[in-house]
């Protein structure tokens, strides 16, 4: 297989006396959807936050395209081309979708007005419309506040933002947790389209059928360590659940 775009080795992270990650490993290859699964408290969120610059690991190394990197802030992660769709979406509900897509990275007008900080709202709306079109996000009214959108549409806005700026990897933390059946379907389609754009998607999810439907690979985290890796096409749900609960061990199991 190709060189991993992002790889974590031996990541240790403690919060006070709680050891959330005990030498966790994780690998993302280019252009794949990889699911990161594990029971509650397995350390999924902590691992994702470590790889997206929110937390700093106590020990271990992170390799980006084969080179060891430090990711001290979310901004640093973004500079590498890594974007995160947070579980709470991190949208500003009173702003319109385009304002959210470009939040912190606004396009300014040219010339003097731009230097004075004047926004190029037309360009941002246009690019937002294009991004929605590419990903099939159905937001009819692109100038209404995000608060007026449905849950699925909001998810679409958050994903579009990540995809618009990511050049390598998009993390999605439980993107369907709060959604109904139809909307979940749309988000899964969205994930496939993101992969079609050549990006890697890391999907954190509890929902096994969903994981199997959309992922190329599955990595299992248990008690702060990676305990198993599967190719989705070759694995059964029992295997994955077994690895999550500790009934089945791979990689030599917990040390």
């Amino acid at each position, binding site marked *: 297989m190709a060189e991993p775009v992002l790889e974590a080795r031996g990541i240790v992270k403690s919060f006070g006396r709680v050891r959330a990650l005990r030498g966790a490993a994780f690998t993302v290859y280019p252009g794949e959807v990889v699911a990161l699964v594990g029971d509650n408290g397995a350390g999924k969120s902590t691992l994702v936050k470590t790889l997206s610059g929110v937390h700093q690991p106590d020990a271990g190394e992170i390799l980006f395209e084969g080179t060891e990197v430090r990711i001290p802030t979310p901004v640093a992660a973004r500079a590498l081309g890594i974007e995160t769709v947070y579980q709470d979406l991190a949208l500003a509900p*009173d702003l319109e979708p385009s304002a959210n897509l470009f939040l912190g990275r606004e396009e300014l007008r040219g010339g003097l007005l731009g230097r004075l900080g*004047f926004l190029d709202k037309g360009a941002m709306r246009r690019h937002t419309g294009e991004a929605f079109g590419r990903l099939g996000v*159905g937001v009819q009214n692109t100038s209404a506040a995000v608060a007026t959108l449905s849950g699925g549409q909001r998810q679409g806005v958050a994903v579009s933002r990540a995809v618009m700026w990511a050049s390598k990897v998009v993390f999605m933390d439980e993107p369907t947790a709060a959604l109904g059946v139809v909307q979940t*379907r749309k988000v899964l389609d969205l994930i496939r389209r993101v992969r079609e754009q050549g990006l890697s998607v890391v999907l954190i999810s509890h929902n096994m059928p969903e994981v199997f439907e959309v992922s190329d690979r599955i990595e299992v985290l248990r008690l702060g360590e990676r305990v198993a890796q599967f190719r989705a096409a070759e694995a059964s749900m029992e295997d994955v659940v077994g690895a999550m609960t500790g009934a089945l061990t791979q990689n030599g199991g917990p040390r």
Partner: protein
Amino acid sequence: MSERVAPPPPDAEVEPDGGPGDEHITLWQRLVLSSTLRILLILGGMIVVFSVLQFQQFATVSNLRNVATDASILLVIAVGMTFVIITAGIDLSVGAVLVFSGVISANVMERMGGDNWGVILVGLVAALVSGLAWGMLNGVLITKARVPALIVTLGTLGMAQGAALLITNGVDEREVPFTLIDTIGTGDVFGQIPWLVIIAAAVAIVFGVVLAATRFGRYTYAIGSNPEAARRAGIAVDRHLIKVYGLAGVLAGLAGWLSLARFSTTTIGGHATDNLQAIAAAVLGGTSLFGGIGTIGGTVVGVFIPVVLQNGFVITGVRPFWQQVAVGAVLILAVYLDQLRRRAQSRN
């Protein structure tokens, strides 16, 4: 598997070149009708009623000038307050900062002596710097010390007011350069429009544009709407909030200098309710106390409602005390409507 994939919703393809035009109208109806325009209609209705009742006195140029002049100093404060409230903050200290800045400005001008524009401009700078200092102190305490804005600005309200009293020994400073009073304070541009109105209008226009069209304005909305999202988007939230409170302070300082010009004295005791009036103006104009929503245009209308009521009651012979009752009721109504709108939105 690809068979099971639902096709992209048709509207997604239609949308970009479709009808953003009509959508703007629905947005327009949704947002503007619900706050700014509605309150503008209320203001228009009040003006019509007073004009019908007492056309001879109410609908005259000189009365219009009175109304606008009365509103102008409050408008300058309320513009800063609007920024603060849009960030989901509050600034109770503006009236006291106004007084403090006026006192500093008057003292500086008196010490320099003379009655010329050099002195007056130094006085202006002194007022602006005093206001900025209090505003930034507010901002730093709120963001870095994480004391709630309500408490911080209540504290600096007392401190600024007390400091003004200490400096003046509680006696109003009356040595204000005559040129300042004669021009900015009571003079008209082209013999028609009071300087105070021109300055207040300029402040409202400049900061209205800043809020609506620039990155500074957008960050102000974003922080009020979801500070955590703003932080994760890489916006320096603390620094921006310090700037916003600094702006509110600077404008309070400017208002202090304008107040000196208008009343030719420091009016130490006369600004105890400026903060509440400014908050009321912003909220009447559709600014949400929960942050993320508001416009300067709305605040302009919100400033005029109490002033027009006061003026209209006086002219029509209603006891002016009713003005406070009416403004209070309208204020509660405005916030209630804001709540209704929020509830309707979150139902989605």
